[in-house]
């Protein structure tokens, strides 16, 4: 895994790819209102259909991949994307964990199709929604539902100057401490997924007096079991514990394991 070193005078080519997703993570790139024009000077935006009809042929130096793999066609397309990409970065909970649509992984997908569509035969989908890393090698990942603008700029900046991006893997708790937010669980008996969730959002929910709902997925080595025990003492039912871990990162392994442990058949 490395940066993107370019021969002098040549701009690295950036591509943005979409799989099953809401478009919010790639929109984060367009939401960099202050940096967008400068970024367009530093890289060649070679493939970004949400923003441009122009297509510059691959290979690409940096590929940002949004969305999860949910159809047979996409399961093949991701390999083509990998072959065309020097550095492949997954962006957001769909690409890194399968997204909210991975809730189907816990159910029978055929039943899901018939709930939504009158003629299910027209719909071609895989039984599971899976993260990109289940299919191809991934160089870097940005977590979040959606990703953080600050982390996106940090990652692109780091790749352009050939250093390792600084993306912490510690918990949201660290961000609360830094912001001086009093712990919601300790002081107000509020359930909060912060202790097991990776930082990056800036503790946005606790800052609004709301418990973290885990949209950045599991932190490195989370102790989900201990956290569930504390939630239980706060009066959270087993069904609600299952739901809490079955959110936007439901299929990330530590959350998947914990939700299944509390599931009542």
């Amino acid at each position, binding site marked *: 895994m490395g940066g993107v070193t370019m021969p002098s005078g040549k701009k690295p080519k950036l591509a943005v790819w979409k799989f099953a997703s*809401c478009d919010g*993570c790639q929109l*984060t790139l367009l939401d960099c209102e202050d940096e967008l024009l400068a970024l*367009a000077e530093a890289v060649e935006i070679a493939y970004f*259909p949400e923003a441009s009809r122009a297509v510059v042929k691959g290979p690409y130096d940096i590929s940002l991949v949004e969305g999860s793999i949910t159809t047979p066609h*996409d399961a093949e397309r991701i390999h083509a994307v990998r072959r065309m990409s020097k550095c492949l970065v997954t962006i957001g909970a769909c690409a890194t964990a399968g997204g909210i649509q991975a809730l189907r992984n816990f159910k029978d997908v055929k039943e899901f199709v018939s709930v939504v569509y009158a*003629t299910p035969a027209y*719909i071609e989908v895989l039984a599971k929604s899976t993260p990109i890393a289940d299919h191809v090698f991934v160089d870097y990942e940005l977590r979040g539902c959606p990703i953080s603008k600050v982390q996106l700029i940090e990652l692109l900046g780091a790749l352009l100057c050939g250093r390792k991006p600084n993306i912490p893997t510690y918990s949201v708790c660290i961000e609360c401490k830094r912001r001086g937010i009093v712990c919601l669980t300790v002081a107000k008996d509020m359930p909060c997924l912060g202790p097991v969730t990776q930082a990056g959002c800036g503790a946005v929910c606790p800052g609004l007096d709301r418990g973290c709902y885990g949209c950045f997925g599991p932190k490195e080595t989370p102790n989900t079991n201990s956290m569930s025990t504390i939630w239980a003492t706060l009066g959270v039912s087993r069904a609600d514990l299952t739901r809490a871990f079955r959110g936007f990162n439901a299929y990330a392994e530590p959350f998947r394991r914990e939700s299944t442990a509390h599931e009542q058949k």
Partner: protein
Amino acid sequence: MSKSDRLRTIKVEYLARVEGEGGLFIRIKGASVAEVKLHIFEPPRFFEAFMRGRRFDEAPDITARICGICPVAYQMSAAHAMEAACGVALPAQLRALRRLMYCGEWIESHALHVFLLHAPDFLGYQDAIQMAGRHRDLVQCGLRLKKLGNRLVALLGGREIHPVNVRVGGFYRVPAKAELQQIAGELERAQHEAVMATRALAKLKFPDFEQDYEFVALRHPDEYPLTEGRLVSNKGLDIPIEAFFDHFAEEQVPYSTALHCVRKGRGNYLVGPLARFNLNFDRLSRGAQKLAQDIGLVPPVRNPFKSILARMIELVYAFEEALKLISEYEPPAAPCVPVSPRAGLGHGCTEAPRGILYHRYRIDEHGIIEDAKIVPPTAQNQRTIENDLRAFVAARLRLTDEKLTWLCEQAVRNYDPCISCSTHALRVRITRE
């Protein structure tokens, strides 16, 4: 084979500058358009299925993930539907805050579409970055307006995309008066800038094309519609939102993962800025009305290419409305009203930037969702987009494939289609026979 029998196909495999994945396929046989299909191949994500079994208060956060461009619309429609199901009404100040947050989303979404996605078509550029070469001021203006819309959403919602502060019953935390006032000066400057930009954009060249549409939008007794109202049309519809499925139906077509929504017994219809503008012109502020008249935009506007101007009028209105709401704001006593679930059915319908977004939920006495139904704006516009293209192409068969293809893409972008939404689409393909 004589020339009149010549087959011609125009296809856009992957439509650019729209949200989501779709394509367009047009088959021309001699002098007539044989087939128009708006392909939507965005993979289905089955929200309505996995909502079953979730708790009623999870609906705003979960459904927001249908669309990263208009998450506020989803949160609002879901919250309203659940509040209706539980028999709760919001006090005036909480309602005003929701309206303010919605103004932020309209600003962000409209500025994105007008300046970064649609304007490049009118000026002949592949994208806004290329357009910034000669029209840097225009692009920078768009970015400034968009940024301010995002700031307003983040101020009330915690962040721009998938805000976290909306809940069934109100908010988690409400801002102090001073927090809102600090953005007022910038909103005023931006409003002025939006007015200037509207006048500049009015000078664009608009293709000569009009259709006799059925426009459908919300209508409120005294406000330009955002979060509530009755559903009305210019062809006699006037119903409470609860009667939605008595008058509208969803149909599945083999080439799209998005269901087509039609008005029962009538067929296709149009939702979005043009529909709102035409049906609610009298509810716009005096300033927005005057601006529209100045640039010659007077209802009924039947040229879909002029939707870019309707969006600009709404953008100006959203700034004005936001300033008004901020000046009248008094923080409510509590950030939310308590909501206890009860068994029942709830409907919510709000005006997403692209048009009406309808939600219906049935919940049990514990608040567990038994059934969910979501009808997004782009699903409602799909058939109208296809009809537009059929008529538009038929009158322009002499154009080269390249020109025609680009114009067709532009015609699709008139609707600011959000394919991620409609699948809970675009490539253009034209075949000539």
